[in-house]
């Protein structure tokens, strides 16, 4: 009979589902099945068992082929690269635990690195906006129990956060939302007729990139002022109706995603979305929550927040923390040729940065720490596979609403494989040796 591990936390998206059950083989070494997870989460657990998985670091040779090296050799290479560099970038940090992020931050301080996490291509605009105007927020538990007006703006949880609606935002029967989805009005704002939009009571199919105008129009409508006939492709009647729906709820929540953070206007789109939320609080209770992508990108911002005072785009090159998105952000640093080494952990800029930035990574000394083969590992000089956090090692992660949840170890990693925290500790020790501090 298979052994079932319960209350497993899914290390894929920021929803951080904590009700997974994993069936293991009799000897507890192999994952046979994953219950309760979405298709992506289940695949993450099952793929960790792949027979073709890399289990040792490999270094790229002159001819482009890869040669297996030991973890000690990989740590030595990484430490030397970081110590020799004047301005290295240490990027990623979103698919790992908070304790590993802490060790990474120590290395960053020692070598004077620029440090950035995946918020830089995800919710960085949100972080800037929150610093500008603050944020009235709530936990997903409060939302499940109270929210009766739910807006998804520029996000598509049916695909990107597949269990968000069933666990927290639309379907659960909460204390004050006893009829589940029937207790709630669901509004989706998206230029596509997404699978989330198809479920909504109201879909505002706005013109792409005109979020600021539509949010501004909703503020006008909330105040009962006059609107032009059409704003961002949406009729004024529909805008007034949505404003009334939001005002008439007992608890409204706006979830938003890359549709607003990636479109022109960027942090200003979020500024005004937060302002809509603030305005709604004159009439009812309202909150706004970003749909964070990687399962621990939020934790990365938390760790750096308490260590350095800033959640991303850190520049530690002067011996103290500076923060200036646009200047100290990964893509700007890469495109401006300001870096002389790149270290990536728990992210894949090779797949998710504009190709102009990836070309720069390919030209520089570079190390990629990732369990998978990725476009980043393909252009890096050293690839260090590590154990999967949340599958083969536990560790703290922060959910999208800033609630910390301890992930679980389900199986042992392949023999001899290090976790990312263990590898980072090797690098940190070697960095200190090279700098004569230990």
């Amino acid at each position, binding site marked *: 009979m298979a052994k079932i591990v319960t209350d497993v936390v899914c290390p894929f998206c920021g929803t951080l589902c904590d009700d997974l059950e994993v069936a293991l083989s009799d000897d507890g070494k192999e994952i046979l099945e994953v219950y309760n997870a979405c298709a*992506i989460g289940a695949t993450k657990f099952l793929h960790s068992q792949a027979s073709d998985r890399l289990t040792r670091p490999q270094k790229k040779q002159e001819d482009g082929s890869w040669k297996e090296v030991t973890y000690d050799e990989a740590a030595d290479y990484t430490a030397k690269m970081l110590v020799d560099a004047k301005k290295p970038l240490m990027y990623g940090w979103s698919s790992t635990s908070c304790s590993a992020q802490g060790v990474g931050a120590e290395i960053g301080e020692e070598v004077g690195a620029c440090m950035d996490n995946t918020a830089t291509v995800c919710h960085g605009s949100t972080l800037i906006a929150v610093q500008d105007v603050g944020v009235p927020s709530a936990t997903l538990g409060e939302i499940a129990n109270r929210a009766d007006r739910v807006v998804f703006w520029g996000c598509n949880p049916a695909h990107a956060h597949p269990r968000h609606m069933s666990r927290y935002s639309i379907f659960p029967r909460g204390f004050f939302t006893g009829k589940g989805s029937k207790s709630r009005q669901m509004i989706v704002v998206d230029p596509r007729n997404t699978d989330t939009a198809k479920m909504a009571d109201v879909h505002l199919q706005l013109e792409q990139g005109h979020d600021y105008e539509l949010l501004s129009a909703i503020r006008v409508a909330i105040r009962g002022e006059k609107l032009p006939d059409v704003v961002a492709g949406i009729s004024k009647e529909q805008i007034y109706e949505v404003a009334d729906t939001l005002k008439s709820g007992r608890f409204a929540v706006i979830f938003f995603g890359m549709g607003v953070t*990636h479109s022109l206007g960027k942090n200003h789109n979020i500024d005004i979305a937060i302002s809509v939320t603030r305005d709604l609080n004159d009439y009812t209770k309202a909150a706004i929550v970003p749909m964070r992508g990687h399962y621990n990108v939020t934790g990365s911002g938390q760790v750096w927040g308490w260590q350095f005072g800033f959640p991303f785009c850190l520049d530690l090159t002067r011996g103290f923390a500076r923060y200036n998105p646009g200047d100290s952000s990964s893509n700007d640093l890469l495109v401006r040729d300001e870096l002389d080494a790149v270290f990536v952990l728990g992210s894949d800029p090779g*797949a998710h940065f504009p190709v102009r*930035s990836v070309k720069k990574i390919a030209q520089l000394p570079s190390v990629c720490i990732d369990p998978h083969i990725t476009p980043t590992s393909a252009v890096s000089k050293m690839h260090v596979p590590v154990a999967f956090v949340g599958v083969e090692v536990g560790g703290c992660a922060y959910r999208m609403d800033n609630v910390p949840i301890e992930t679980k170890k389900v199986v042992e990693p392949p023999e001899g494989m290090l976790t990312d925290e263990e590898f980072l500790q090797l690098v940190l020790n070697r960095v200190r040796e090279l700098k004569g501090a230990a």
Partner: protein
Amino acid sequence: MAAIQINLISGRTIQQGVAMESGKEKPAYRDACGILELDDAEFKRLGIFKNTNVRVSSEFGTVVVKAIGATQGPHPGLGWIPMGPWANALVDPNTYSTGMPTFKGTPVTVDVAENETVLDAIALITEECL
């Protein structure tokens, strides 16, 4: 053959997520992300059938992907490539001092490339960068 201008956006799909976690070096990742979703009207303007390879070009790059019918449409005037190296071959890297590249809303030209192949992720990034 005609060429058309559309506005390109990208983002997650569940197929992209599953394929990504199954291994980005595998053909399934290319099949999930090396695609361009278009409305029927755009296929008519292009004069091609669905599932034909097309070349998509922007001010910032060019990539060959397979044009398929919109799965979450209609979305007139918009093209959709799931997030990944194919979309990122085209997007605007300018951050306008925010740190955030302009991933959504890239004007692109689409033309037919029936005889060209859609590269897998590793081949694509290697060809572009190394």
